């Protein structure tokens, strides 16, 4: 092993470097040990504690042992670290004192002095001993002594500087131990030395960096220094630390450049700013690019050189660190920043030079990475590399354009010169890549050599880039590269290749709604399609562009012109049509029908106004605009009538079309709207609500996966549909913006017409809107003629002339002269025909057409109205006066009265003076000219009056009162009321009424009174007939005399039989009654006549000399002023003889002071029980029908209370004889009893002692 012999060459080969350790003393000894040593040393790792709080590291130490020479020791100021000896070892195996004294000691001393002179303190003395030696030695001191000597001779107080290594070449445990001890010692001291020396070095370096603001400071010098450190770290395999050094340098430099940009440039930077002469990209294939390093050392490096060198080192280290992807990423950043820096530093670079440099660099980096990774890794890390690929592609492209390589007629001389210059800048290919086929250098050279070669390389790169982008899902980037490619192809005049890329890109932009890219790409596509002669597509694209607002006005005009000129060119050769979607030419705004409800009768005229927005920048003349209409016959007949349609149509008749959404595919829009409903879940047992909630009816539709909306660029696949029904308008000029178009059509068949497809034709070009949405329909109907008759007022009043409106809807029937309506009169209703009746004729849409005189002739049976001539689908309206003869229905007074009073009763309960008039219907059958059947119409008249009558008596004198109540809204004049009884002649009715006509306002009543007088015995019943003349108060003179209003009724038992008198007398001795003190009530009942017809009933009993009847009297005091003491009622038998009188005496006590009315005395017929109807009668039932019978003529509150009181009485009495047959009570008709003391009053004086009053009250 002679390596130590040669002096160390100053050259640096980093990887081979190891820290230097010098060996002095016994060389042979060392040589013998060296092999073991060199292999033992790195075996065990050692922890290296670092200064500046850096994390400690384990390192495997190796070192380069060299023979000690004085010149190895660094001179003052030498910063070299690589050549720095970190440790000095002296080897000896001397074991006897003489030898030591004689030679070894001096040698050691000399060695030590040299070290001291260079103030290097990292040394070690190794004493090797082996037993072999001491065999032959006789005079042996204890061996330790040598070591001891050395120790105290040289290593004072650091005795560990001297190490013993015993029998190194033996194989014994002892040997092992000593070895280990020695190695550990060696390692520690080495590390200590590192820490110390590196520490010092770093300090120096730092101070140097601090100086960087000083004028003389040179970046390159500093660079060298810090790189030295980096080298050492690298040498120690501390790549991280090494990398840090370079990154620091990198950052420092960048900072300078930035500052330079900001204005303060360090003068040393100017070295770097010299114009770029060579642009042979990065060199990454060898650990250190020496020539670049020297350039830097000599301060002749350009920015590119520096950057390249720096990066090459970083790259190397990163690769050591297994971080190839970081290399790629850093590379891209580097290249970008270099370009920026050159700009910033205003370094002059020949055009294209940078492109070359970048291109080469990209490929170099990529190849370097590929060099150290396997395919799989690369494929899985495309994301990192693809950037470089596309950057390279980009650069190659720009080179191509620069050097005229992208054109069908190759580069011109000027281009060629440029190419030559660029190639010159590459210099000669470097040896290390010389024999790799695909080296970046070769690629570039070749690419620039010829148009074909360039194309090949460019396409390769582009495709590679596209492929990579797509493979990692960067479709957009891929598209962009694709577009470049397309441009390239266009330049090369091969549009067919370009098209797919443009289409692809366009599709993508449309899908994502990017307006500007869309426009731009479309322009390119248009050009491409033009070259390809795809007329249809070209025209479509043009139309799209012409309507595109991102395009300049001129361009729009141009594209529009393209379409027009094509159209004009093609006109001569008809037949072949070109169908394009409408939306890119014009848009529908709104549509408006007249008539607005879009309903016309057969033969009617319908017009459709359409507002169409032309998207074209210039006025466009259009041959025809046609709307295809789909016709469907309506099943439902009724639907065809005008009323229905008018009811069910949007009356304003304006349909707005949604504006075409600008390319913005907001996904939520094309989703159907949710349809939510409330959900009620009831329990099956009882129908009670279990759960409620919200459910979605159309969930299935919403949850369905959304199929990506198909080709947004609708290919002109719209089929022209031909149809029988077409709305046309010809030769229109569409101005830019809104245009109003008018379509007119005459309705033929009835049914529903749906506007389907709109087609604008410009020459052979058809712009088609395949479906009008929203649905646009109009309806055509045919209608049967009909007659309607209705009162003008809400109700017709009987008895006075009333206006009735006749409406004839002609429908499809045309009314000719002589057509007439034949009305067959109803007997109780007559039609009053005046001199002038006018009829008005309206059109279907209620416009007044004409106003004509109407002739009405009426015979007793028939009235004929001759209609004026009117066209179809018109309306004839006229009014006639009719009169219904008023009469209280002639069915017997009693019932009729009930019939009329019954409702009145009801209203009374709910205090509403509601008028519910009795009504009479009149049917009229009319024969119309258009049908053989006669239509029957019913008119309902209501009687304006309600009449009631009542009987009034004064003693035996009798009066009849008739009340006429006016229920109508009108006021009336009532005149000469008259009452007659045709039946009984000897009876006379004396009117007590005013002669003058009475005025009754609406809802008012008028009363008429007659006195009854008679000579002989009056009949049990009267049959009266009331009649009164009437006329509406409002109109003065009526056209015809009106029949008077009549009312018939009967009066029975009006003749007075009994007179009842009551009288209250104060207690004897007092002239006035006092409250609380008893008074006597005298009641006298007097029979006024002898036996009459009316008395003939079961109450009548015959005694020997006269007839008598049973009566029941009852004293009731509803006002409870009186307390009746003792029995208040009783049954008496009354002789049926004139002036027969029956007196009753009873006690009553006034409860209040003042004028009190007398208590009421009532009389009833007391009918004894008859077996006939005893059985079914019981307590309640008799009260019931008794009350009924009482009801008859007595007015309400009175009798109700009487029932009460009587009820109480009888229930009391009836309680004992339960189940026994009951006698019956029958009220005497009011006419038969006259209470002469009715309305009398008695004065009652308050008594002194009130507490009695108290008592009586409670």
């Amino acid at each position: 092993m002679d390596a130590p012999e040669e002096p160390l060459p100053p050259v640096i080969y980093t990887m081979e470097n190891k820290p230097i350790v010098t060996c002095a003393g016994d060389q042979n000894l060392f040589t013998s040990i060296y092999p073991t040593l060199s292999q033992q040393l790195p075996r065990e790792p050692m922890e290296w504690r670092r200064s500046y709080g850096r994390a400690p590291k384990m390192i495997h130490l190796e070192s380069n042992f060299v023979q000690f020479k004085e010149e190895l020791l660094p001179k003052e100021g030498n910063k070299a670290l690589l050549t720095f000896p970190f440790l000095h070892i002296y080897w000896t195996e001397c074991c006897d004192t003489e030898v030591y004294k004689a030679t070894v000691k001096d040698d050691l001393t000399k060695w030590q002095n040299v070290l001291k002179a260079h103030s290097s303190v990292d040394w070690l003395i190794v004493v090797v001993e082996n037993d072999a030696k001491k065999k032959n030695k006789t005079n042996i001191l204890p061996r330790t002594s040598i070591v001891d000597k050395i120790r105290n001779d040289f290593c004072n107080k650091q005795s560990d500087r001297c190490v013993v290594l015993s029998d190194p070449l033996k194989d014994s445990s002892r040997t092992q131990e000593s070895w280990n001890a020695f190695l550990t010692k060696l390692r520690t001291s080495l590390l200590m030395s590192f820490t110390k020396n590196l520490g010092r070095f770093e300090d120096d370096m730092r101070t140097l960096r601090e100086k960087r603001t000083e004028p003389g400071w040179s970046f390159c010098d500093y660079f060298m220094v810090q790189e030295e450190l980096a080298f050492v770290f690298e040498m120690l395999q501390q790549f991280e630390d090494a990398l840090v050094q370079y990154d620091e340098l990198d950052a420092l430099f960048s900072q300078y450049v930035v500052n330079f940009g900001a204005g303060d440039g360090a003068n040393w930077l100017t070295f770097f700013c010299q114009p770029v002469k060579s642009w042979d990209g990065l060199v990454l294939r060898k650990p250190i690019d020496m020539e670049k390093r020297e350039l830097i050392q000599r301060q002749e490096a350009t920015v590119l050189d520096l950057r390249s060198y720096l990066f090459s080192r970083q790259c190397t280290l990163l690769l050591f660190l297994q971080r190839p992807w970081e290399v790629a990423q850093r590379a891209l950043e580097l290249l970008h920043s270099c370009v920026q820096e050159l700009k910033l530093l205003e370094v002059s670079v020949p055009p294209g030079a940078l492109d070359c440099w970048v291109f080469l660099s990209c490929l170099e980096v990529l190849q370097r990475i590929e060099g150290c990774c396997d395919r799989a890794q690369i494929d899985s890390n495309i994301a990192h590399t693809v950037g470089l690929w596309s950057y390279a592609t980009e650069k190659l492209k720009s080179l191509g354009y620069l050097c005229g390589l992208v054109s069908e007629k190759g580069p011109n001389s000027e281009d060629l010169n440029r190419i030559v210059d660029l190639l010159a800048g590459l210099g000669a290919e470097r040896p290390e890549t010389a024999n790799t086929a695909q080296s970046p250098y070769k690629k570039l050279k070749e690419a620039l050599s010829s148009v074909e070669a360039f194309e090949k390389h460019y396409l390769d790169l582009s495709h590679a880039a596209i492929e990579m982008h797509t493979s990692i899902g960067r479709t957009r980037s891929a598209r962009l590269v694709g577009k470049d490619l397309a441009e390239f192809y266009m330049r090369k005049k091969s549009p067919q290749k370009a098209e797919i890329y443009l289409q692809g890109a366009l599709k993508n932009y449309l899908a994502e709604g990017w307006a500007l890219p869309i426009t731009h790409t479309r322009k390119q596509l248009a050009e491409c399609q033009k070259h390809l002669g795809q007329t249809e597509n070209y025209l479509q694209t043009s139309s799209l562009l012409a309507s595109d607002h991102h395009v300049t006005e001129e361009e729009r005009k141009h594209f529009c012109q393209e379409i027009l000129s094509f159209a004009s060119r093609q006109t001569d050769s008809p037949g072949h049509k070109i169908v394009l979607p409408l939306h890119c030419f014009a848009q529908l705004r709104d549509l408006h029908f007249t008539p607005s409800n879009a309903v016309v009768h057969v033969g009617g005229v319908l017009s459709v106004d359409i507002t169409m927005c032309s998207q074209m920048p210039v006025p466009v003349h259009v041959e025809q605009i046609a709307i295809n209409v789909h016709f469907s016959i309506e099943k439902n007949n009724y639907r065809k009538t005008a009323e229905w349609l008018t009811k069910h149509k949007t009356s304003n008749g304006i349909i707005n079309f949604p504006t075409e959404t600008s390319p913005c595919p907001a996904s939520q829009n094309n989703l159907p709207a949710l349809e939510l409903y409330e959900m009620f879940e009831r329990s099956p047992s009882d129908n009670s609500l279990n759960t409620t909630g919200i459910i979605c009816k159309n969930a299935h539709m919403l949850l369905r996966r959304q199929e990506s909306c198909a080709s947004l660029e609708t290919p002109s696949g719209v089929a022209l549909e031909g149809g029988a029904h077409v709305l046309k308008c010809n030769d229109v000029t569409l101005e830019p913006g809104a245009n109003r178009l008018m379509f007119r059509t005459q309705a033929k068949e009835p049914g529903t017409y749906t506007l389907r497809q709109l087609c604008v034709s410009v020459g052979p070009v058809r712009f088609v809107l395949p479906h009008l949405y929203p649905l646009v329909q109009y309806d055509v109907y045919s209608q049967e003629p009909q007659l309607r008759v209705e009162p003008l007022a809400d109700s017709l009043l009987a008895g006075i002339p009333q206006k009735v409106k006749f409406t004839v809807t002609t429908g499809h029937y045309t009314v000719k002269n002589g057509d007439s309506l034949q009305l067959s009169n109803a007997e109780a209703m007559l039609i009053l025909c005046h001199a002038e009746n006018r009829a008005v004729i309206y059109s279907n849409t209620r416009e007044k057409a004409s106003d004509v005189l109407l002739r009405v002739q009426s015979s007793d049976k028939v009235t004929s109205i001759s209609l004026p001539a009117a066209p179809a689908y018109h309306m004839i309206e006229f009014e006639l006066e009719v009169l219904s003869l008023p009469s209280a229905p002639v069915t017997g007074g009693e019932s009729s009265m009930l019939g009329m009073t019954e409702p009145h009763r009801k209203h009374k309960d709910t205090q509403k003076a509601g008028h519910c008039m009795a009504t009479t219907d009149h049917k009229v059958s009319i024969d119309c000219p258009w049908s053989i059947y006669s239509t029957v119409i019913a008119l309902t008249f209501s009687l304006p009056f309600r009449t009631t009558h009542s009987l009034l008596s004064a003693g035996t004198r009798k009066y009849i009162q008739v009340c006429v109540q006016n229920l109508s809204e009108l006021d009336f004049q009532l005149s000469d009321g008259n009452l007659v009884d045709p039946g009984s002649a000897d009876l006379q009715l004396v009117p007590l009424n005013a002669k003058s006509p009475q005025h009754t306002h609406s809802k008012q009543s008028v009363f008429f009174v007659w006195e009854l007088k008679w000579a002989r015995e009056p009949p049990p019943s009267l049959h009266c007939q009331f009649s009164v003349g009437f006329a509406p108060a409002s109109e003065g003179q009526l056209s015809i005399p009106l029949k008077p209003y009549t009312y018939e009724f009967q009066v029975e038992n009006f003749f007075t039989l009994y007179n009842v008198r009551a009288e209250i007398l104060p207690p004897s001795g007092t002239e006035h009654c006092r409250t609380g003190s008893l008074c006597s009530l005298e009641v006298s009942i007097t029979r006024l006549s002898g036996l009459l017809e009316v008395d003939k009933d079961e109450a009548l009993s015959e005694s020997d000399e006269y007839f008598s009847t049973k009566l029941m009297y009852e004293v009731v005091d509803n006002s409870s002023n009186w307390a009746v003491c003792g029995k208040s009622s009783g049954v008496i038998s009354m002789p049926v003889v004139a002036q027969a009188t029956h007196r009753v005496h009873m006690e009553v006590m006034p409860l209040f002071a003042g004028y009190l009315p007398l208590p009421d005395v009532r009389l009833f017929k007391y009918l004894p029980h008859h077996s006939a109807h005893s059985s079914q009668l019981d307590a309640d039932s008799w009260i019931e029908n008794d009350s009924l019978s009482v009801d008859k003529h007595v007015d309400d509150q009175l009798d109700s209370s009487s029932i009460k009181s009587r009820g109480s009485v009888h229930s009391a009495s009836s309680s004992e004889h339960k189940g026994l047959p009951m006698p019956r009570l029958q009220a005497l008709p009011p006419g038969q009893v006259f209470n002469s003391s009715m309305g009398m009053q008695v004065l009652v004086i308050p008594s002194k002692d009130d507490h009695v009053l108290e008592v009586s009250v409670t």
Partner: protein
Amino acid sequence: MADEALFLLLHNEMVSGVYKSAEQGEVVSAAKALEENGRCITKLENMGFRVGQGLIERFTKDTARFKDELDIMKFICKDFWTTVFKKQIDNLRTNHQGIYVLQDNKFRLLTQMSAGKQYLEHASKYLAFTCGLIRGGLSNLGIKSIVTAEVSSMPACKFQVMIQKL
């Protein structure tokens, strides 16, 4: 979020407002009534949707990005619910097939209305808005969904979220 009382009252008014405006058009048949009712529900739900969109934009402004669907649902149940209804969802269940059931045992908008079955027939009106709130929130977080609700005894209620797989 506004003071909760305010929110509650406002919400009630909104519901009645929507239903009043619906009554203007007189309802003829029962079927029509149901449909009309549905329209109101939908209207309320749509209101909720828009509000949800806005709210979620605010609420998620400072949160970390969501990991996945479940992460989002959790956010709705916790943070979102707490901010709007002052409490968390009591129970979240899912079939991992895109259906989630959020159960709130004491739903803010029902508590003051009834405890039990009284007014049950009206309950759903008061859930529509919240359904929308959820749907809006989710949709703004990029999840298309349908949200339905269910009450059997107030104030507890369930919201079911059906997520539209894209």
